[in-house]
């Protein structure tokens, strides 16, 4: 087991966490899009995410590309195994992406409403599917000796996977609503505060329930039993989630949003810690599991990629911070297009 394989396991988790936190807020905004009232509120909501959503989505492409480069068999098995689910995810992502742009060019209110619906529906479906996918990875799937998924599409819809999917909906809805509270003012911000409260009311119990359910799987418990310090991760995640709700009620949206982002990262860290070194546990035959040991690229590829990724991501973080600063402050309806 080389250190490079461990590093890449961590980096993949980090890239997905970056995606969840960053694209999470604009996906979450999408989930609330139809709950706004009137054209101005919708325009404000879109302007709040317009300069950022595209860059945020690149985190998913980067995570996917990095997974392909570092762990090709995992990329191949998961993407072919979850075929129909992924096609639906692609459909959802395509629709929401073009809806954001197209809507701004439409003059008829009816056409705008259609794209609004596509944006909201696409965002919601994408969040649900990504959660269900993670649930399946955690739970493990049926693989053959060649790493091919041997189950069916409906075999992916187990109670635990659906639970993670619903948790993801509540989590991202909370995150998105808090972003709206932070980036807008007046009636819209008030309404978003209530959205956040509502979503958080589901988020906290779902998070507790999911953690308990996950702990019932022996293979997810293993690392935690061997290394009790890991329990800090889910514990701190719950603390962050509680603070999210507390700060939202206290009218401190900035803090609540940071707490929410922290909660997302910690939950994913807890999941990664439970999986390690597995990337796809094989339910039927544990020895066929795809792990960081048996499913990685060669040491040369991992090393080259590490150099490229470190240099590249440093640049990316630099100009990402710059653009968030350039568009800081409250979003307004009459800015942009």
């Amino acid at each position, binding site marked *: 087991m080389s250190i490079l394989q461990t590093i890449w396991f961590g980096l993949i988790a980090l890239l997905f966490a970056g995606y969840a936190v960053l694209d999470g807020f604009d996906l979450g905004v999408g989930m609330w899009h139809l709950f706004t009232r*009137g*054209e*101005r509120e919708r325009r404000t909501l879109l302007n709040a995410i317009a*300069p950022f959503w*595209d*860059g945020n*989505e*690149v985190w*998913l*492409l*980067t995570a*996917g*590309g*990095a997974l*392909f*480069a*570092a762990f*090709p*068999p995992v*990329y*191949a098995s998961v*993407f*072919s195994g979850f*075929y129909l689910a*992924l*096609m639906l995810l*692609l*459909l959802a*992502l*395509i629709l929401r*992406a*073009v809806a*954001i*742009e*197209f809507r*701004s*060019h*439409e*003059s008829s209110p009816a056409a705008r409403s259609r794209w609004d619906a596509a944006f909201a529906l696409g965002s919601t479906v994408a969040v649900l599917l990504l959660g269900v996918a993670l649930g399946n990875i955690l739970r493990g799937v049926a693989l053959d000796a060649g*790493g*091919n*998924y*041997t189950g069916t599409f409906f075999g992916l819809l187990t109670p635990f996977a659906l639970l993670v999917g619903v948790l993801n909906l509540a989590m991202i809805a909370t995150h998105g609503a808090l972003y709206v509270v932070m980036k807008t003012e007046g*009636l*819209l911000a008030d309404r978003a505060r209530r959205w956040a409260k509502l979503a958080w009311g589901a988020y906290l119990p779902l998070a507790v329930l999911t953690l308990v359910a996950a702990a019932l799987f022996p293979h997810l418990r293993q690392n935690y039993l061997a290394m009790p310090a890991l329990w800090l991760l889910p514990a701190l995640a719950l603390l962050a989630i509680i603070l999210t709700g507390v700060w939202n009620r206290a009218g401190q949206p900035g803090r609540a949003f940071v707490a929410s982002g922290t909660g997302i990262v910690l939950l994913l860290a807890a999941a990664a810690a439970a999986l390690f070194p597995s990337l796809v546990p094989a339910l039927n035959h544990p020895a066929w599991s795809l792990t960081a040991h048996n499913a990685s*690229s*060669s040491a*040369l*590829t991992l090393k*080259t990629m590490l150099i490229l990724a470190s240099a590249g991501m440093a640049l*990316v973080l630099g*100009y*990402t911070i710059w*653009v968030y600063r*350039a*568009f800081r402050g409250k979003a307004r*309806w*009459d800015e*942009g*297009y």
Partner: protein
Amino acid sequence: MDAVLLARIQFALTVGFHFIFPPLTIGLAWLLVWLVGRYRRTGEADDRALARFWVRLFALSFAIGVATGIVMEFQFGTNWARYSRYVGDIFGAPLAAEAVFAFFLESIFVGVLILGWNRVSRTTLWVSSWLVAIGSTLSAFWIIVANSWMQTPAGYITRNGRAELQNFWQAVFNPSTMPRYLHTVDAALIVGAFFMMGISAWYLLRDQHVEVAKRAFTMALVVGFLASLGAAGIGHWHAVQVANTQEPKLAAFEGLFETQTHAPLTLFGIPDAKTRTLRAAIQIPHALSLLVGNTAATEVKGLDATPRADWPPLLATFFSFHLMVLLGLYFMAFTALGLLLLWRRRLFGNRFFLTAALWSIPLPFLATQVGWMAAEIGRQPWAVYGVLRTSDAASNAATVPAGQILASIIMFSLIYLLLFNTWVRLLRRAIHHGITDEAPVRIDDPGARR
């Protein structure tokens, strides 16, 4: 239908549709550097209007390029799992590098370019236009690296039942990377230039926004001419590389059945694989040998040098290649004529030429499509030339059955049809709205209802 064929159809459909947009946005991005740069210099209202108008058309096209690009990144895993396992050690890296070094750059600064007009300085806008252009051109680099490795694999060793990386730079700069990259970027400039010429011509024909339309037309004409000349030079370089590294592909391009010196260049013909002859051939004697090796004595390998089972499909490869060349010649002639008219000061009064410019908009798109068809069909029956057959590259048919692929083909066809219609409709709307600073959509909302 069998799953491999369906997977190929799906890939062709999704990549073909996707590739309508990147060449356009790469080409337009460089033209925008000039337009935004001019606004930065002058600060004039009409320069601002012109730049914002083109940013608007750019944004519409960019959005679809991004949305349909996600599909491509996923598709190797969904439909080509065996391919992904076999070459992932090499092929995944350029895809990841593309995201890290290019997608982030263009995606983040495109936001500034579209939305920053009342927020950031003119210089920041201009720098953003540069970064968008550089980002999109870099993303072309990494994706061409990946594809070129499939054409002329290098820097790898077959070990542990897969292709493993041995030398990163040899894999990146494999024999076909540079000619194909420059050819692709050059083609993108032609696409962008003809798009800008055509739409500017529409305004000139209607006597609207005449001053700014002339400005954009002239710049696009110059870029289009230089890029068309470049396409001939780079195209030649690329063809020589194909002759040296992928003999059956060049033979299929040219319909050359027999290995020979003094090989002729085929202008037209119908290759017949059964009789191994080129029917209705119109050829220039010796010319192919001359082009490939600078002397007529150069031996050019024909299809007879390759086992029949390893021939690429002849008709599709031959005709897509020849159509591309023909279109390339048209672009050169058209832009040269345009420059001549411009020099004689007869360009903007020439309704015939302006109408031709308008109707020429789709042609460079067609040229890039058939160019890629020639490149990809010409590589068959290999997924990775000489290393992995396409039939061994698809996902396990039990995991991804043909029915599921068919269902997703139908899904993509419908959604892409919708996207294409909407794109054309909204482009027309934005064009009818005019070259103006003002957004095409006015929000006259009576305020939020409680």
